[in-house]
């Protein structure tokens, strides 16, 4: 076992999360069983506790990578976080996939809870409860995974780091780019990266303006589904661009395609990636809340706060793009 202050913090938090998520999940199940008590004070208390706990839980996602970074010097052969992930690759891969999913759903629930409290909408109580039950289930799995991973982490394993798999000409991102754009894909991919981000930001801005100016019927037809799909496509394109062109250029290592090394060599890449994720997730949160409230009579009350969320998402995406541009051209 390998312990340091970061891993001990994660272990402690994972244990607390597991217990709280189990209790919260059971309380939510009881609430679902006795629906006539849905608006009781106990449910209010459950949601209040859940919002505090889940807000703290949001921080566990970036802290996971901070903890992995702290292990780099202790693992033989590890040069960056990628090397640390190779100690227990399958479990770490699973955690790396589930954590952003939990972040997305947790953020969505917190925003929904905050907005419904601000706007005093009680008709969404049942949907919030079901949503919370689902998140509790995910948090239980994630916490158990964290406990297992950090208890099994050891310094006895020698690993191979990122150079061979991620700088090989046969790496997955290069293969996908070659299939889609041909052998000389760098310049087209660079162009598509900027085009995709501009289309997404522009489309979201258009949808925002359409919200403000249209009638109620027009607002119903806002292209928020299209924006959500554009957001997913942009996420995929930006991911490819990050591996293939942005990370190598920002690190001034044109043949090194490791995003974990980017976090090491370019300190503000955390901010760039964080803003991009918040921007993309923000569009997803808006879409999700629209879907959840689509048949509610009180959906109109959420229009103004959702507009602000949309604006926040557009700003985050543009700032992330601007920071990348500064790095590449200054």
């Amino acid at each position: 076992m390998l312990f340091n202050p970061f891993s001990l913090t994660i272990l402690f938090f994972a244990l607390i999360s597991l217990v709280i998520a189990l209790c919260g999940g059971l309380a939510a199940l009881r609430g679902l069983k006795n629906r006539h008590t849905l608006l009781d004070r106990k449910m209010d208390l459950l949601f209040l506790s859940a919002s505090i706990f889940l807000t703290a839980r949001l921080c566990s996602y970036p802290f996971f990578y901070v903890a992995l970074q702290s292990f780099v010097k202790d693992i033989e052969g590890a040069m960056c976080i990628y090397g640390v992930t190779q100690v227990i690759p399958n479990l770490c891969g699973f955690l790396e996939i589930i954590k952003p999913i939990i972040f997305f759903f947790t953020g969505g629930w917190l925003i929904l809870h905050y907005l419904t409290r601000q706007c005093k909408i009680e008709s969404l109580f049942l949907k919030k409860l079901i949503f919370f039950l689902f998140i509790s289930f995910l948090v239980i799995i994630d916490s158990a995974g964290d406990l297992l991973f950090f208890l099994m982490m050891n310094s006895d394993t020698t690993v191979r780091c990122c150079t061979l798999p991620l700088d090989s000409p046969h790496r997955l991102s290069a293969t996908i780019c070659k299939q889609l754009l041909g052998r000389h894909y760098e310049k087209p991919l660079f162009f598509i990266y900027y085009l995709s981000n501009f289309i997404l930001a522009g489309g979201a801005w258009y949808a925002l303006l359409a919200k403000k100016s249209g009638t109620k019927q027009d607002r119903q037809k806002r292209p928020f589904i299209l924006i959500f799909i554009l957001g997913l496509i942009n996420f995929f394109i930006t991911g490819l661009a990050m591996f293939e062109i942005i990370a190598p250029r920002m690190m001034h290592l044109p043949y090194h395609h490791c995003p974990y090394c980017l976090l090491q060599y370019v300190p503000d890449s955390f901010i760039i990636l964080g803003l991009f994720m918040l921007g993309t997730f923000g569009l997803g949160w808006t879409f999700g809340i629209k879907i959840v409230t689509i048949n509610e009579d009180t959906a109109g009350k959420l229009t103004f706060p959702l507009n602000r969320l949309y604006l926040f998402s557009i700003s985050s995406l543009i700032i992330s793009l601007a920071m990348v541009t500064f790095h590449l051209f200054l």
Partner: protein
Amino acid sequence: MKFSIIIFAILFLMCVFTWITPHREKDKPPGCSLDGSEIHPLYEVIITPLDKMPKSFAGITNARIWFKENVKQTFSIMVTDEASGKKIKAKDAFYVLSNVITSAYTGNRIHVFTEKKKSPVPHPAV
């Protein structure tokens, strides 16, 4: 108004970080031209493209990966004799594949020597 202040603060932080990072990079010691890792003097490989600045690599494996991407250019390649630490031309060196790993993070097992008799491990040359 509040929102504008937040946006301005984010833009300001963005500019500060963007300004700080290039300055910090100048203080960083030069590493491998492929992946930025620390170069051990005994395993250094130097590739000099024609009329360009020489590039240093942490080992044979790193140099090979870089070389595959730039095979069409003309180079002079210098490798390091592990016995003496001297730089020699790549075509004059002997290469030995052994079980001893020079660099844990790439798993490189190719060793470089000036003379065949100095190669400690009786394996066929690569």
